[in-house]
């Protein structure tokens, strides 16, 4: 078996009395999409944020390509090869689409302390940014202010910035949220293309998308992983169905397809 790209070992996090994450261990293997599902408040976002470094874990370890990154800052983890997209679209609103991606290319290159040459005249920066825009079909929007993009386009821009980091692993927190059904089909295509660049740890509520995309699923309930396995294994798992019963976001597809 190959080594995991990303390995989370015995991660724990409490917020006062609330246990957000309890002894979570999971792995992201090369070339796979590993989906993280679970009811609202299960701690999926907290887990992603701990891996990305926005939230510091109480205990446990996070390894990226075998290297312990659990004490690094967010920016150091990004440079080490983690690219994240946020649950709520997070771009630089008053930058053009091109400038947003240039920023990511610049972050990847590690040279942000250059003071005198105009950024827009640096071909290595601009051309690479344009090539990523072309990959996501955003070329025509390059001059548009990010704040003026539609919701779906902003989601794409975020993915484009993640791609520009040429990461070892993607952490995507609900990339389909709010893009509509046509948008989510397009996003599904996009994510399966993204997977060829680096494996994806995916938090997603859209179960159709999850079942189409995921190679592996882990189910998080009250901060614990109660089941982990292939799509079929999870569908058959009684504990998972139990956990979803009566839950607000009961995914119809879990039942329909079983």
């Amino acid at each position: 078996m190959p080594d995991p790209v990303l390995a989370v070992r015995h991660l724990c996090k409490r917020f006062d009395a609330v246990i957000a994450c309890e002894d979570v261990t999971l792995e992201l293997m090369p070339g796979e999409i590993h989906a993280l599902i679970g009811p609202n408040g299960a701690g999926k976002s907290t887990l992603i944020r701990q891996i990305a470094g926005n939230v510091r874990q109480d205990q446990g370890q996070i390894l990226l390509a075998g290297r312990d990154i659990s004490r690094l800052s967010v920016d150091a983890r990004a440079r080490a090869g983690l690219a994240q997209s946020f649950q709520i679209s997070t771009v630089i609103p008053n930058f053009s689409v091109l400038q947003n991606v240039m920023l990511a290319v610049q972050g990847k290159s590690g040279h942000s302390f250059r003071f005198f040459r105009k950024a827009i005249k640096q071909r290595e920066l601009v051309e690479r940014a344009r090539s990523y825009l072309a990959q996501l079909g955003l070329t025509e929007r390059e001059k548009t202010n990010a704040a003026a993009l539609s919701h779906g386009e902003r989601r794409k821009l975020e993915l484009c910035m993640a791609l520009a980091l040429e990461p070892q692993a993607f952490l995507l927190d609900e990339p389909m949220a709010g893009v509509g059904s046509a948008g989510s089909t397009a996003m599904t295509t996009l994510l399966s293309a993204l997977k060829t660049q680096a494996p994806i740890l995916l938090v997603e509520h859209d179960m159709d998308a999850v079942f189409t995309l995921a190679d592996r699923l882990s189910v998080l309930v009250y901060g614990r992983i109660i089941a982990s396995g292939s799509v079929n294994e999870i569908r058959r798992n009684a504990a998972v169905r139990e956990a979803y019963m009566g839950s607000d976001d009961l995914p119809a597809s879990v039942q329909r397809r079983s």
Partner: protein
Amino acid sequence: MMSREHLVNAIVIALLVLVPLLALVLDEPYLITLATRVSILAMAGVGLNLALGYGGLVSLGHAAFFGVGGYVTGILASHALNYEPIMQTPWMIQGSTEMPVIWICAALVCGVLALLIGALSLRTTGVYFIMITLAFAQMLYYFSISWPTYGGEDGLSVYLRNTFPGLNTMNGIHFFAISFAWLLAALWLSSALVQSRFGLALQAARQNPVRVAAVGIAPYKVQLTAFVISGVITGVAGALYTDLNRFVSPSVLSWHTSGEIMVFVILGGVARLVGPLVGAAVFIILEQSLGGISENWQFWLGALLIVVVLHARGGVMGFLAPENGHA
């Protein structure tokens, strides 16, 4: 093609040169002094604009840099004029009346000071950042009042302006030329920084530090660097200001000074290259015209500021050359 903003910038800068030249012809030395004051105060504003405008770091403590730059000039010059070394042990350090030496000293001292203040202040944001920068400046203000060695409350006089090779600095137009050259240098530096990779990261960090960190750039380092450069520019302006007045007193360290520098930036246009210059010019023009009519001219300045903040966020520059969008 010259954009409208470039054209306005060129006109504003040209006016700043024309006024003292005209004053020279008409033999109105007072106008030359005013233009020099505008240049120096504008330079202080250019420094602050880098932090406040482009970096979103609302510092209400830039008087610390302006004042310390001013005191570096006063202290070096007074020691040199009195033939007293600043210290003898462990090293012999003499005062100086050479402007280039003084500028380098002011820049270094203000750079280190900005590094210390910035490193602590940048751990906070928003209103706490405003308060902590204010607190640092006020500490220095009270220190300057209570430290009798350099005049305490009475301030420190410098009998002769410091010297610059090849120029007679006591001649108004020569000193204007020096101040104006510094302003141009600060404007050039500010323009280059804003458009560089560093500027991209700085402006991004103002809008969304979380995103900046997520692409692998540490917002703290970028903002701290900007804060230091900002402090150095404002500090050198302070050094020039002491030479202009041949006097420095604790008032340059008071929070009024921080407030005035901030007013230049807001009045002229936040995050606009020549905004601080326009702001400082408007400020001085108001002071001179309204100041003659009423002691309370600042009341009218306040009214103008309210109008700008409520109805014309872009300041005077936003009115002269509306922004075309990005960043």
